[in-house]
């Protein structure tokens, strides 16, 4: 798993690469959660290169959503591969995340 951050206008874009599983979900949590929450910014997790997720990774996504919601910010997810989207759908998580097709779509809205 690799995670990088980039600020584009008032949106923090988070790029995830690789796998998030039970062996590294704590690292993912430590890297992601502290940067979330400031209501002046939107947050976008670009999942284009995320190619594996298990329930331990989903737990961190849920934590992220709770933290951003509590701070009245907005969290977007985009560019999910179909097999990752399927896991979100089955878990009933697609209904609680704002999932978009492309990064551009989100950045236009966040501007």
């Amino acid at each position, binding site marked *: 798993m690799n995670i990088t951050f980039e600020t584009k206008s008032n949106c923090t874009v988070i790029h995830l690469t690789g*796998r998030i*599983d039970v062996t590294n979900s704590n690292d993912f949590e430590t890297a992601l959660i502290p940067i979330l929450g400031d209501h002046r910014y939107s947050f976008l997790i670009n999942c284009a290169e995320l*190619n594996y997720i*298990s*329930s331990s990774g989903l737990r961190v996504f849920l934590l992220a959503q709770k933290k951003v919601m509590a701070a009245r910010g907005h969290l977007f997810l985009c560019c999910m591969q179909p097999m990752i989207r399927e896991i979100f759908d089955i878990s009933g998580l697609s209904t*609680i995340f704002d999932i978009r097709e492309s990064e551009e779509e989100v950045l236009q809205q966040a501007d």
Partner: protein
Amino acid sequence: METKGKIQFILDNKVDELSLLSAKVETMADLWDFSESLTMNLNLVLEEAISNIVFYAFNNEDEQKIYLTIEYDDDTLTALIMDCGIPFDPTRQAAPDITLPAEERTIGGLGIFLINKLMDHVEYCRKENMNILTLKKRIK
């Protein structure tokens, strides 16, 4: 049905074993020409089932073994997972409420829920002090 492939693993009850296992499963899946999505789902259910065993099946720090067999024939992929930990039947756990709003949602029980959703058949039995979990998925 003719068996087309079969592979067996003996894992220590350590979470790091799952990284090694997933790499091996990917190599095997390439060889067996599984789709990327089937490979991910297989790795996912193995991770959920085996991490449950690692975290909850044993009450002491002793080294324990977990036995895994993956096999496929013309139309079915079967994974058999065995451990000699405390009895635990994943088929009898309550499903999480996946309709709750984000604030009330928890992730507890989601791993087993995913196993049940992603597999076509999940069967548990306890035999001679062993938990035996059989997972089956129809493949084309």
